[in-house]
């Protein structure tokens, strides 16, 4: 079985400071990992994905994440927060189990607040 834990339900940063959103996962297979962002009243937008290639993954809007198998982590970072980054962020795993149908398992979400 696969699971995802987002360690912080809320993170607050000042504009221009770094962002760190933490995620740990468990999987019995070789997982693919994703970060999605949801702005208020909007759908889920794919930020970035890890699918067993480079462990440091770059996404849109300056976000990146590093896959660390030894720590079972996939933390999301950004060097400098912008007001428009305020949103809910979801860490997501797809287990890679044969015949799994590509189902995604979502973490509980982290609400990022950016102060001016």
């Amino acid at each position, binding site marked *: 079985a696969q699971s995802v834990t987002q360690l912080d339900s809320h993170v607050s940063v000042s504009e221009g400071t770094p962002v760190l959103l933490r995620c740990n996962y468990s999987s019995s297979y070789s997982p693919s990992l*994703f970060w999605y962002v949801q702005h208020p009243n909007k*759908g*889920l937008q*794919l930020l970035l*994905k890890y699918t067993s290639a480079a462990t440091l993954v770059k996404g849109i809007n300056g976000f990146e994440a590093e896959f660390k198998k030894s720590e079972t982590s996939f933390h999301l970072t950004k060097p400098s927060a912008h007001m428009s980054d305020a949103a809910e962020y979801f860490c997501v795993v797809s287990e890679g189990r044969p*015949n799994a149908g*590509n*189902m995604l398992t*979502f973490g*509980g979400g982290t609400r990022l607040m950016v102060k001016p």
Partner: protein
Amino acid sequence: EPEVTQTPSHQVTQMGQEVILRCVPISNHLYFYWYRQILGQKVEFLVSFYNNEISEKSEIFDDQFSVERPDGSNFTLKIRSTKLEDSAMYFCASSDWGGQYFGPGTRLLVL
């Protein structure tokens, strides 16, 4: 940029009624999905669909639910005899070989 669309954006129905939620996936995608998010809870997988059949479904996806791809563009989720606990945001997604791309969701309220 191509995107997944869903209709309606909001649906209010009476308990026991049937609802059909509609989705238009990205045109060259082959895999289709439904997820739901009950208010204050995690996004949950319902079902995946490939090659005109269900490839996987969760425990939530019982006989009350069905999916269909009635033509080359639409993908529907039918909920028969809705219950109060079916109130949620329902997301459709589609994918090729990469990540899944989600629609904006349909907010379903069962009264």
